[in-house]
């Protein structure tokens, strides 16, 4: 575990990001169990989903240093699904009507 304890290390932020991702996974799981059926749950899960995606692209994929096109693709991808989740929760009936054949 020295990788997570030594100072001046480039791996330390990766370790913190990994722990944060595990923590957020546990949090979303706990919310799913305890807030079963609550209307606001999808909105909170959407927020956690975006945060987890941001941690992966920020620390593992180093989005800050990549080509602008790749940066836009990654940031758009992590934003689209939480946004769709929030919108389809808030406007479920309208979306179902709109998506009917």
């Amino acid at each position, binding site marked *: 575990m*020295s*990788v997570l304890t*030594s100072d*001046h*290390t*480039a*791996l*330390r932020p*990766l*370790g913190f*990001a*990994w722990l944060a*991702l*595990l923590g957020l*996974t546990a949090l*979303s*799981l706990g*919310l*799913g*169990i305890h807030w*079963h*059926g609550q209307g606001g*749950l*999808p909105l909170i*899960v959407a927020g*956690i*989903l975006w945060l*987890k*995606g941001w941690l*992966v*692209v920020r*620390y*593992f*994929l*180093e989005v*800050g*240093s*990549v*080509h*602008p096109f*790749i940066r836009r*693709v990654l940031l758009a*991808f*992590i934003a*689209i*699904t939480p946004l*769709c*989740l929030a919108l*389809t929760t808030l406007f*479920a009936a309208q*979306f*179902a009507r709109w*998506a*009917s054949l």
Partner: protein
Amino acid sequence: MQAELDSPPCALLTAPVTPPVESGRVPGNKGIWVGICCEFVEFLVLFAVYFIARAHFPEAFEAGSERLSRVSGTLITVLMLTSSFCLACAVHTVRAGRRRASVAWLGAGLLIALGYPVAKVLEIQWNLAHGIDGEAGIFFTVYYYLTFNHLVHAVWGILGMIWVMLRHVFGAYSAEDHAGLEALASYWHATDLIWLVIFPFFYVLV
């Protein structure tokens, strides 16, 4: 190189000071990013199927996730996140010129990633034992459709890891040239991102 060979095993896991990376770069190579973009588009289409099915059959989706094994979903999430972390460390250590440490991180990432197909097989056995097959309803059809697709992409990544591992062991990558390793890591992180979406869709939300 000699200093690295002489260092004790625990020192291989101590973190190096990674040199700063250039801005505006393409991690790995352009080809892998074409593949990643195609993978994102493919899964966005599948996510659209999920949202449309969920909007039309909210009761089926509410009841469905209660029947799935949350333990399996959580285990796969932990395996994906941890192997992704190991691959990120493998890239950072090779960048800092610590090849042996990088091989060790990549080996750890591969071993952990191999747990994913094992966990998935166990989950499917559990599902079938509980009457959850492809004809169990719309929720499970979408669930199998998305998770099998993800498994296929993960298996490609695992095969890539084995190939890159062999090359890495035989000294193909260095601090100056490790595009293949970084391309693999980028693909695996992208596959991880997709799983992070799938996990709440089926195991958390009701």
